[in-house]
């Protein structure tokens, strides 16, 4: 299809580069430099979508990111992105897009029946309509709403592209690359400040690219090009086009998204689609420009009705005629420049409708002074307008100029309320609270010369605030069409139900008036009741007219009504770029033990445990996990096994006050621990609940090594830092995490001593010389090794620590030494089974609700000293008889299986919450006993040994009678560990 609406010359496009693209399945051609909207208009495609509620035909309204209507689905398959404004999509070869919210086609849409039913779909429609009968809500109403609601459709497939996050620091961040931003960046950049200048568009220039502005006698875009070239050449300046600064946060941190990979169907190789920038700026210059606003009239949503600035932009920047016969309607001088530009672009201007009593300039166009467009005519696109006096003008384009709203979004995101200025009839940025300044049109300086001046002044001030000597750059002399002279006009009364304020959400004048009548008079209430300004464009064209219409309905002025709060983001940001790399396996860093590869080499199967990958078991020829676990337990209890315990937290403490520090951290006492011994310790939180447990060993007079559980290690470290720095700075203690510096291997079982004696032939490991809870440092062929006689399995056992890098070699050494005893490596499952058999707790049991007394550690709690949690552990509720206490449980019928999470109820009761007496926290099949066993908490459980209660598992539909027993299933006297 030929580009019938393309002008023969002009525009910032490369006519040598033809780009082919598809829209709704049809093939078209455009030029490099086009936006998708420009290319569609060049091909005469004016109907690009259907509206949200009424499915009315909609066309292109703007020339930028404020577009409410021309939203398309870009790309296909997994890369499909819905609700993309065609006005901001840079055209590329092979682009594929489709219109939204239409069925079966954009030209013939069945749901446009909603348009006829429009009286039903008024403000508050959902609240009023889908109320009764309540039973209809899910089966009928919700389905209907879900089908009808929403614009574009997500692909439903995982996004195959990559997204990045990065940080940027600068002296001066300039937001916007129009004349004001360029002047600011040049001034600050030449002064040597580190400058970042961002613009959402593909090239710098802003209004200089789309308006008939001359600088130093030449087209404005030429000066913009030279300025951009100079900036790009300054080593201290970073130019970021295609980058939207979307959020302004506390302390001059800002968020920006750079569209790196949007110049083609897929991002270039090794490049992300988008990059999120976290910018820390010394000073911020907001040169974000202004957004033109419409004047609301009946049928103002027809394709062919667009903002005057957009009409000029399509002619000047893209050399596209947005129509053939135009009416220009407005309340300020912009209409005459628009008429001139359109005429120069070969559009016949059939009327300039000036709502003001008198114009400031004469015009060669047919002018309808003191007249208003009361409605647009046409069905699928505009075919004419009717004026207040009944005059009808035939046209296919209506360019509307309602004045300008400075882009106060970023400024107000800092918490500054915008201030109404009646002269500009617009909200201007309020007094800055952070190190920022708004300049140019964003501050209400709409003339290009003022934009250049304010931009340069702000650039100088910003550079100086960062300690640079700066001088104002030589600025070009600007010539541009006359503008201003605005006399406020927000809407033209007519058929209010067809007069659209928010084009994307189909909010009409009558909706706002209805909201006001029904009591939603606050601007925040009106917004939510009508959903005005809540669509993806966040009301960039709609908010101020909506506010003005509400103010009129309330009989007040706009500043009395106030404005809603602007929040980030300025324009929609894809969720993918917030996630960045943190998705799927990269959601968080994976931690691996120094024995990970060693485990792999020995056939380990791994499982996730928090951030860790831990060895689950070492299955052999065809074994499942359970069979492997049973074998590993039996072999360990019979002879000897070994297990990776490197993941435990290790904290090295030194100093004369370590014992006192430990005394205050743990609930049990530490003053009597001799050098060369380990002790089990229990830490509480200050509220008296168990926090963590582990052993701490005294390696020297003033040298201790603490171990923590794997999961709590970072929290214990933070807690200790809090205690030392905030509570007890007087204690002379230094400590550091050494978790990653050591590999740990547990060797357990009756033959473990024999194995270790082979590893340490020089050492005396006899029970007399190295008894239970002994701790010592040994030389292992030149390696410092730490040996602890501690056990989690209840067997005679040791834990050996060696420097992390030597872990695999030492593990192999132990395997070799144990070969004659049939040493068996075991995983986390076997470790867990053995600790359940022995009745040891883990964080499966200590879940943040359990006190030391609940867990059976009541006797450990010292009464002779202060420690964290002591006082609140004494609160009366914690000593109530009915508190759940730690017990062992076994099925009466030994063939029954027990499940963690199941509840415990007395016999002869119904399965209801008032009979609930506790729960199972850990359960395992015990190969040693030959049946399932469990640990759990039962009301007053330690007094109920021998009683039979019911295990009730409503999730699995199970009920199993279980007997309450001691939690020490295996070797309750501790004969094995002490052997």
């Amino acid at each position, binding site marked *: 299809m030929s580009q019938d609406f393309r002008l023969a010359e002009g525009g910032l496009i490369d006519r040598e580069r033809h780009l082919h693209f598809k829209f709704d399945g049809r093939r078209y051609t455009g030029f490099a430099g086009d936006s998708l909207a420009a290319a569609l208009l060049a091909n005469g495609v004016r109907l690009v979508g259907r509206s949200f509620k009424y499915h009315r035909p909609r066309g292109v309204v703007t020339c930028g990111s404020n577009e409410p209507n021309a939203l398309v689905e870009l790309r296909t398959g997994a890369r499909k992105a819905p609700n993309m404004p065609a006005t901001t999509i840079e055209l590329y070869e092979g682009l594929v897009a489709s219109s939204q919210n239409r069925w079966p086609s954009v030209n013939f849409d069945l749901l446009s029946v909603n348009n006829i039913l429009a009286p039903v779909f008024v403000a508050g429609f959902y609240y009023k309509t889908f109320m009764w009968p309540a039973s209809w809500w899910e089966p009928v109403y919700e389905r209907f709403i879900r089908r009808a609601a929403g614009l574009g459709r997500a692909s439903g497939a995982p996004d195959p592209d990559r997204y990045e996050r990065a940080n940027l620091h600068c002296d001066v961040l300039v937001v916007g690359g129009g004349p004001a931003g360029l002047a600011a960046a040049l001034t600050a950049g030449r002064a040597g400040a580190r400058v970042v200048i961002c613009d959402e568009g593909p090239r710098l220039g802003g209004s200089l690219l789309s308006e008939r502005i001359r600088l130093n006698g030449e087209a404005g875009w030429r000066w913009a090009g030279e300025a951009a070239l100079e900036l790009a050449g300054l080593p201290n300046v970073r130019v970021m086009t295609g980058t939207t600064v979307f959020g302004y946060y506390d302390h001059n941190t800002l968020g920006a998204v750079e569209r790196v990979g949007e110049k083609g169907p897929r991002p270039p190789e090794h490049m992300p689609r988008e990059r999120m920038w976290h910018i820390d700026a010394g000073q911020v210059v907001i040169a974000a420009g202004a957004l033109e606003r419409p004047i609301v009239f009946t049928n103002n949503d027809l394709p062919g009705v667009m903002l005057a600035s957009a009409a000029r932009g399509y002619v000047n920047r893209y050399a596209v005629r947005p129509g053939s016969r135009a009416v220009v309607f407005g309340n300020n001088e912009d209409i005459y420049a628009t008429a001139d530009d359109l005429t120069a672009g070969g559009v016949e201007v059939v009327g300039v409708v000036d709502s003001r009593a008198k114009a400031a300039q004469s015009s060669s166009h047919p002018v309808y002074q003191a007249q208003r467009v009361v409605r647009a005519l046409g069905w699928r696109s505009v075919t004419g307008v009717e004026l207040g006096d009944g005059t009808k003008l035939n046209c296919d384009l209506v360019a509307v100029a309602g004045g300008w709203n400075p882009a106060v979004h970023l400024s107000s995101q800092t918490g500054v309320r915008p201030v109404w200025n009646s002269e500009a009839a617009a909200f201007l940025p309020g007094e800055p609270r952070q190190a920022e300044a708004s300049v140019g049109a964003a501050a209400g300086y709409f003339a290009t010369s003022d934009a250049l001046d304010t931009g340069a002044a702000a650039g100088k001030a910003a550079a100086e605030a960062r300690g640079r000597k700066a001088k104002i750059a030589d600025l070009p002399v600007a010539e541009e069409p006359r503008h201003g002279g605005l006399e406020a006009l927000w809407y033209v009364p007519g058929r209010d139900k067809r007069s659209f304020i928010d084009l994307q959400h189909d909010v009409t004048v009558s909706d706002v008036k209805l909201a006001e009548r029904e009591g939603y008079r606050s601007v925040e209430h009106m917004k939510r009741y009508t959903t005005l300004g809540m669509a993806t464009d966040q009301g960039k064209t709609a908010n101020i007219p909506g506010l003005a219409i509400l103010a009129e309905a309330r009989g007040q002025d706009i500043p009395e009504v106030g404005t809603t709060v602007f929040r980030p983001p300025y324009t929609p940001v894809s969720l993918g770029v917030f996630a960045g790399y943190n998705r799927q396996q990269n959601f968080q860093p994976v931690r691996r033990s120094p024995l990970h590869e060693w485990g792999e080499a020995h056939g380990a199967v791994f499982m996730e445990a928090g951030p860790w990958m831990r060895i689950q078991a070492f299955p052999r020829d065809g074994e499942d996990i359970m069979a492997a676990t049973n074998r590993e337990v039996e072999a360990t209890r019979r002879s000897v096994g070994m297990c990776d315990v490197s993941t435990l937290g290790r904290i090295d403490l030194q100093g004369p006050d370590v014992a006192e520090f430990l005394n205050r951290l743990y609930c049990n006492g530490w003053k009597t621990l001799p050098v060369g011994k380990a002790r089990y310790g229990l830490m509480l939180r200050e509220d008296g609940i168990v926090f963590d447990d582990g052993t701490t060993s005294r390696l020297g007079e003033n040298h201790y090594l603490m171990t923590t559980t794997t999961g709590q290690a970072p929290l214990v470290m933070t807690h200790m830092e809090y205690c030392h720095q*905030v509570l007890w700075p007087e204690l002379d203690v230094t400590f550091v995490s050494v978790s990653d510096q050591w590999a740990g291997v547990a060797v357990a079982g009756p033959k473990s001593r024999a194995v270790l004696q082979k590893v340490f032939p020089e050492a005396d490991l006899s029970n007399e010389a190295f008894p239970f809870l002994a701790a010592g440092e040994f030389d292992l062929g030149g390696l410092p090794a730490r040996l602890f006689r501690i056990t989690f399995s209840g067997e005679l056992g040791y834990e050996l620590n060696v420097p992390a890098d030597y872990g695999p070699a030492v593990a192999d050494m132990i395997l070799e030494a144990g070969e004659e005893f049939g040493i068996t490596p075991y995983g986390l499952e076997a470790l867990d089974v053995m600790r359940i058999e022995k009745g040891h707790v883990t964080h499966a049991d200590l879940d943040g609700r359990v006190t030391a007394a609940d867990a059976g550690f009541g006797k450990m709690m010292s009464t002779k000293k202060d420690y964290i949690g002591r006082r609140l552990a004494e609160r009366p509720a914690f000593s109530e008889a009915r508190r759940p206490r730690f017990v062992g449980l076994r099925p009466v019928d030994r063939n029954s299986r027990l499940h963690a999470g199941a509840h415990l109820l007395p016999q002869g009761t119904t399965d209801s919450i008032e009979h609930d007496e506790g729960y199972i926290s850990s359960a395992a099949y015990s190969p040693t006993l030959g049946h399932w066993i469990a640990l759990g908490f039962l009301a007053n459980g330690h007094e109920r040994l021998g009683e039979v209660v019911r295990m009730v598992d409503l999730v699995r539909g199970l009920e199993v009678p279980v007997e309450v027993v001691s939690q020490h299933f295996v070797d309750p006297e501790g004969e094995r560990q002490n052997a």
Partner: protein
Amino acid sequence: MRIPCPLCGDRDSGEFTYLGDATVRRPPADETDLEPWFEFVYLRDNPKGWHKELWHHGQGCRAWVAVERDTLTHEVFGSQLARERAIAEDERA
């Protein structure tokens, strides 16, 4: 948000974790009345405006920092190592 760490300088708030009111004091070890302990563990004011708070520079030097901040405007007035502040208070007491 930027938090001034007395050791590292201005750092992004993402490097810190927040604890809360820095002005509450742990009751003396010999306090046997549960009420002050209950207040220390559970009760916090939620001031609008000036506040002194503990932040932990966990992704940095691991110092606990007492930061003076306006909870309404997020303006930060200054900071001090919690350790130095605690020592100074002990000396006054």
